[in-house]
């Protein structure tokens, strides 16, 4: 056999061996998509407008407080949608003073004045709104990432969909309990400690009546979570609490699973240095009063302060072990800046994925067997070429997928099966052309040469056009479809290599033995 054929053969064997090396062991090297290995796929939307509205509302009440402090009275005040508010004054003088304060304290707002009645309209400009939205998404992404890290998922995907959208994609392979994960991610986890002024009462109305029908300034009424204490159900109660919290969740240093005095699951917390001092002073001064622990505006428990509490304590509620663990987790991971909404949830259980793989592999092996039998039957000796090319093709596709870390999905398996059928196409084109040339009476060698060179343009154009279609599929597709496009694209590349190069070398091996006939 001529030396250059040997080199080429060596190269082909090298490619095959390298592919096997990349694939082995298949269970670990080939990334299976969620549809095959089971897991949870979530798309969630950060309600960014909420973050904007929250910011505007906070500035609104702060400005009113500042005006109050300066003894500037207002005739009426109102929020205008989510992005601004209007203040009306009794005199232009008051309005101008108010404007001065607004300029000083809230420089990012756009201010407009109107003469009669003297009013000031305060508006958050679009660029500032966009900045708030952007930071809400980033912060949510970070919080969700923290929570999932704490939850302990191997190889999670947590990313923004698109560069500027407010959607976040979360993929958690191998996680089976979608409802728990969804609750875990959705919790705002805003934790606050607030002093109880009055309560509990059975209803909001009765509490308000006890207060003489008017809510005292800087207080609010919050509902407690119903719980079970020593086997007795305690219904929800209503408490009057201070609006301003003593300490907040963001001042936590740590939160962990703990137990209460009854040995029931609870969440233990430690405050950071600053908050520790604040908390110790406050509890020392308020012994005997109740302190409400508020999570997402619901009172978890309202224990009596029995002594001066330094930086550590527990949060008690009727938690199961799992709930207490999850609560500790979200407290460690931090609060969400805005609420989130689920747009998409696809959960595949492990048994469903296993069945899909089994059936996919069955279909692939049946299809492949049929094609192999047909090719050997139809083209005899040359059929061996096509079959070798086919096998090498599969190896290369799997090898490249393992190397670039591409994900094999169910449509991807189907794509691979399809490739089996289509990849013989290039060989068929060449073989048919060689037969034509032989029929014209050419010698074996020149028929092979002519067959390859004449089939080349058809193979190139046909494959490139299919690749164009696959590229668009990749560009616009999502999830499993993307996986399909990747499989197809790699497959086309591999198919061109095997048909044009590998098959050629095999023909060269045939003819180097000086055979004057060709089995085709």
């Amino acid at each position: 056999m001529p030396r250059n054929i040997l080199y080429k053969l060596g190269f082909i064997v090298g490619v095959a061996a390298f592919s096997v090396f990349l694939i082995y062991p298949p269970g670990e090297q080939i990334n299976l998509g969620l549809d095959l290995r089971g897991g949870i796929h979530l798309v969630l939307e950060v309600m960014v407008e909420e973050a904007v509205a929250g910011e505007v509302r906070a500035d609104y009440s702060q400005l009113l407080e500042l005006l109050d402090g300066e003894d500037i009275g207002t005739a009426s005040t109102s929020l205008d949608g989510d992005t601004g508010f209007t203040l009306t004054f009794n005199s232009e003088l008051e309005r101008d003073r108010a404007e001065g304060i607004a300029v000083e304290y809230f420089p990012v707002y756009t201010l407009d004045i109107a003469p009669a009645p003297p009013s000031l309209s305060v508006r958050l400009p679009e660029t500032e709104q966009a900045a708030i939205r952007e930071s809400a998404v980033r912060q949510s992404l970070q919080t969700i990432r923290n929570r999932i890290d704490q939850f302990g998922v191997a190889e999670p995907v947590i990313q923004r969909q698109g560069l500027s959208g407010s959607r976040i994609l979360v993929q958690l392979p191998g996680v089976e309990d979608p409802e728990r994960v969804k609750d875990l991610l959705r919790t705002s986890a805003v934790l606050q400690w607030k002093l109880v002024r009055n309560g509990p009462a059975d209803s909001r109305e009765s509490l308000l009546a006890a207060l003489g029908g008017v809510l005292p300034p800087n207080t609010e009424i919050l509902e407690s979570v119903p719980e079970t204490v020593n086997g007795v159900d305690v219904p929800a109660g209503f408490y009057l609490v201070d609006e301003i919290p003593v300490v907040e969740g963001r001042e936590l240093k740590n939160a962990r699973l703990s137990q209460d005095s009854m040995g029931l699951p609870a969440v233990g917390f430690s405050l950071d240095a600053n908050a520790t001092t604040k908390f110790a002073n406050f509890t020392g001064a308020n012994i005997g009063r109740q302190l409400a622990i508020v999570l997402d505006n619901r009172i978890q428990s309202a224990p009596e302060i029995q002594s001066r509490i330094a930086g550590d304590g527990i949060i008690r509620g009727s938690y199961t072990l799992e709930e207490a663990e999850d609560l500790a987790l979200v407290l460690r991971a931090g609060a969400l800046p805005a609420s989130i909404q689920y747009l998409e949830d696809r959960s595949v259980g492990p048994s469903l994925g296993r069945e899909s793989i089994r059936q996919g592999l069955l279909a692939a092996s049946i299809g492949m067997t049929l094609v192999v039998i047909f090719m050997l039957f139809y083209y005899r000796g040359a059929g061996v070429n096509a079959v070798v090319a086919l096998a090498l093709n599969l190896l290369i596709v799997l090898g490249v997928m393992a190397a670039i870390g591409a994900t094999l999905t169910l449509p991807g398996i189907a794509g691979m099966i399809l490739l089996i059928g289509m990849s013989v196409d290039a060989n068929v084109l060449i073989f048919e052309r060689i037969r034509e040339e032989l029929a014209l009476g050419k010698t074996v060698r020149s028929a092979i040469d002519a067959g390859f060179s004449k089939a080349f343009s058809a193979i190139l154009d046909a494959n490139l056009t299919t690749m164009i279609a696959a590229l668009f599929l990749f560009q616009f597709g999502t999830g499993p479809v993307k996986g399909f496009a990747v499989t197809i694209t790699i497959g086309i590349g591999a198919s061109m290599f095997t048909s044009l190069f590998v098959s050629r070398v095999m023909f060269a091996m045939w003819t180097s033995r000086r055979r004057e006939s060709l089995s085709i």
Partner: protein
Amino acid sequence: MRLIGKTEIDFLRYRRMAAALSGLFILAGIVSVVMHGGLRYGIDFAGGTQVIVLFAEHPDLDALRVTLAAQGIQDATIQEFVAQPGHEEVLIRTPQTDEGGALISEIYAALERYDPPTAAPGQDLDFNAASREVVTSRLLESNPLEFDTVVDLDNARTTYADIAERALGTRDEVGLLSSWDAVDALNLDPRVGSWMKSAFYFGRHAVVGQEFVGPQVGADLSRQTMMAMFWALAGLLAYISYRFEFRFGVGAVAALLHDVVIAVGAFSITNREFNLPVVAAFLMIVGYSLNDTVVVFDRIRENAQTQRRQPLYERINLSLNQTLSRTMLTSGTTLMVVLSVLFFGGPVINNFAFALLVGVIVGTYSSLFVATPVYYWLAERALEASRKKR
């Protein structure tokens, strides 16, 4: 061996007949779409909630529907997904969406009512439905191996997680278990074994997959799909115009549109569901059909160079005949695999395989009877025009 030898079929002669046939198919598809009131969109496009439930025995679908309606889910579609004895999968879908997850809970509750568990006192967990996380945390809570969970929590967690993985892994191999035999064979610690037997019962059904897609996602997806199709066709037209000539590009794109429209029609006529993998299949049809067409065009291009004197009509027919053997062989091998996916690939990709089946057949037909005649027609008109000029 040779299936198709040298042929001299006058393909172009049948072009009007073929046009009528194609028109008929396209019309049938359109009529079907109109009569069905649009395509039957799957959850990917329409949005909604769907669960796949595995039953041990063949479920009574009507009774299930009644139970679902009693639970407040009136508009559910129930479809048998897999029907094998001992492994019956049913797909329950409702167009309602609810991001709070309450809807899914209602479906779970309806399933409980339809197929109530037979649990002994104290058994409050369904082994067939429990997740690894739940089993792990329940083991940790009950602590049958008596770890000191204050000092040794991490070790206890790892041990219990491993037990949960092994026990449920056994279950996932089978689907639904009905006795402890398979778990006993794992030789777990007897204390764990007896705890499991006291805490778990075997439910007769389990939810193996659930999906919820909000309406916004579906709308975005439709838009993206249209974009993908549009740009793919535009890109292909540009490529073929560059590599061949513009008239070939028009012929190819006409054939592609023809194939996709007929495939969509076939989906409507067979009342199959149009979902995301089907879109992938459609783009694949585009790729396949094009592959076929390009091979024919390549031959026409080649013959135009070698036999300049030959009239266009004869040249096209010659090219079609020369490539016919290859066209049939490739269609044949592709059909072999497509059919094996259709029959053995399982329910999840069944619609995908059906789309490919239609695509391969129509794609082969269209390169012979749509793409080439359109090219012929355009080229003839151009020739006429240039003759008139002279």
